[in-house]
């Protein structure tokens, strides 16, 4: 009795396997911080990718084959990110990888995809180093620190006419990477030096020592490079101590929490961005994305949603180009061949080093926690 049952189950399993083998799905690996302090960012990334996958599959997949996602957590740790990438590549045998968030995690784990020669797109990491080590298997949708920090610095000097620029940054891979770019751009393009350059701990609460130093330096503009939590603290504490100079920053500031935490102190903060969720001003492709996202999740997408969505779309371009064999070299070639592709975060062209070139947006937080497009 038992034996026959076992045989029956086995038979069903084999059958099921045989059926699925026909239209075998294309496995794409996704990894990001899904637990810990950055879990929200990881979650938004997965949402964007999931939406893109759904649209692609609903449109008939790629060469008749469906895309299936395998999702792994990297806990925001470089060590775990390496394991996660290995799991995707070697255990799940995915044909493409999207991830992760922290630049240090991407840098550590892209060695794995590089070695295994698996096409890899990072949606959110901005570290300049990712695309300048000659890794032929990586592409990036996020605008690198070079682009973002460069754009904000130019905005500060050219549009605001600032002669004295102060910098504050969170001393980790996100903040320090951008700080170096700002200093470089100021020096190379304008022959200037920042009047203050103050790091703070990534989980610091009291920003006044740094703000006092900025105030003393007589800076006309403060460029801060950090996430929205610290952004809120800086805005609040700067206003409290009477420092009223314009506050500028990077994409990490864009979050509805920024206004919730800092209130009116956050009004007027200007930051660089790759995506602006305003249908009236958006390109048709971006507007379509906003519509679809709102329908799917019942809220407006943020920039991470958009970049993750674009990552999946660019991966799909690679897959299309490589059909029906889906050879790794063909997929990567397809990704690098993307040119003037209208997507959620703009019209994207992938440069030979893997970076997605597009215009950087500058946005400003206005009354009520809304954003307006500056340029």
């Amino acid at each position, binding site marked *: 009795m038992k034996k026959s049952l076992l045989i029956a189950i086995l038979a069903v399993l084999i059958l099921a396997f045989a059926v699925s083998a026909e239209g075998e799905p294309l496995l794409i690996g996704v990894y990001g911080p899904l637990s810990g*302090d950055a879990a929200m960012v990881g979650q938004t990334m997965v949402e964007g990718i999931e939406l893109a996958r759904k649209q692609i599959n609903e449109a008939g997949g790629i060469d008749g084959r469906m895309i299936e996602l395998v999702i792994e957590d990297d806990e925001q740790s470089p060590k775990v990110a390496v394991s996660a990438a290995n799991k995707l590549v070697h255990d799940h045998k995915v044909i493409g990888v999207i991830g992760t968030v922290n630049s240090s995690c991407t840098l550590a784990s892209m060695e794995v995809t590089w070695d295994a020669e698996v096409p890899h797109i990072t949606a959110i990491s901005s570290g300049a180093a990712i695309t300048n080590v000659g890794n032929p298997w990586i592409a990036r949708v996020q605008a690198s620190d070079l682009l973002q920090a460069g754009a904000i610095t130019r905005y500060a000097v050219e549009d605001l006419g600032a002669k004295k620029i102060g910098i504050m940054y969170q001393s980790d891979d996100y903040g320090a990477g951008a700080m170096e770019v700002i200093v470089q751009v100021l020096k190379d393009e304008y022959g200037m030096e920042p009047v203050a350059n103050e*790091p703070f*701990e990534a989980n610091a*609460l009291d920003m006044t*020592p740094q703000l*006092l130093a900025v105030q003393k330096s007589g800076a006309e503009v403060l460029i801060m490079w950090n996430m929205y*939590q610290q952004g809120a603290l800086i805005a609040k504490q700067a206003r409290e101590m*009477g420092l009223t100079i314009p506050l500028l920053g990077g994409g990490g500031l864009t979050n509805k*929490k920024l206004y*919730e935490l800092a209130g009116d102190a956050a009004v007027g903060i200007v930051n660089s961005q790759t995506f602006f969720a305003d249908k009236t001003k958006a390109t048709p492709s971006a507007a379509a994305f906003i519509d679809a996202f709102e329908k799917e999740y019942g809220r407006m997408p943020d920039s991470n949603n958009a970049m993750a969505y674009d990552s999946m779309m660019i991966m799909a371009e690679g897959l299309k180009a490589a059909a029906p064999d889906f050879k790794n070299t063909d997929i990567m070639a397809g990704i690098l061949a993307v040119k003037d592709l209208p997507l959620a975060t703009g019209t994207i062209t992938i440069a030979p080093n893997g970076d997605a070139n597009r215009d950087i947006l500058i946005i400003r937080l206005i009354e009520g926690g809304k954003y307006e497009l500056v340029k």
Partner: protein
Amino acid sequence: MDFFIQQIIQGIAMGSLYGLIAIGYVLIYNAWGVLNFAQGDMVMIGAFAILVTHIFWGLPIIPAFVVAIIICAIVGYFVELTSFRPLINSSNTRRLIATIGVGIFLRNLVRVIFGADPYPFPSIFGNTPVKIGELTIIPQNIWNTVIGFVLVFLLTVFLNNTRLGKSMRATAQDREAARLMGINVKQSMSLTFIIASVLGGFAGMLISPVYFVIPTLGTSLGNKGFSSALLGGITSNPGSMIGGITLGILEATSTNFSTSIQASVAYIVLFIVLIFLPNGLLGKKESRKV
């Protein structure tokens, strides 16, 4: 000069919070002989307790504080009962590791319940800065400093002048002798732990209006707290307040010397104190027993 004074003012505001956190370390160290690495997370628990009572439940501020204090006491008692009492006769190594475990547990439990994102908390005493000449002072900071000192004063009075306080002190000095004197050692140790937890939580309640409420609130504050405790002398309650303010001022003024040193100030101070001033600023010398 104004700039320097402004730095000092800021240092005192932050430092008195460090001091308040430090007292929790001191109380537990003296009664239990262990540095409680979960003390920083009690600060976080306090911040979340007031968030829940005042914002989520909508209690007016005073009852909200009272209920939050009760929550902190309960959490403190739970930690003592589950992770300190069973290990009372274990080696220091084990007890230290247990406190690290408790910290990880509390931090992540709160994160599971409330998420990793920060919550705003409205100012209780007003965030509109007061201008005195060129100097800016934030009312909340003054209040925090004052409340910090008042609490330390009350604690000292309690420990020196009440029967319960005296038995707590006797227990901290010599557990065996206290037992012989007829003191309920178990009870006074529990009480010490609960008071330390409440003081830690209270620091969290004072901090939340200045900053915000987040599960990782206690990690760096905890380190600053025990640095202050050791700087002040781990055997001294008033010492921790002095230690906290000293550390606060050192941190605030460190930006004058080097921009990248601020994050390490607490640890460099700690290292120097341990080497050159092992009994801290106000601590008593621990004599050697053969």
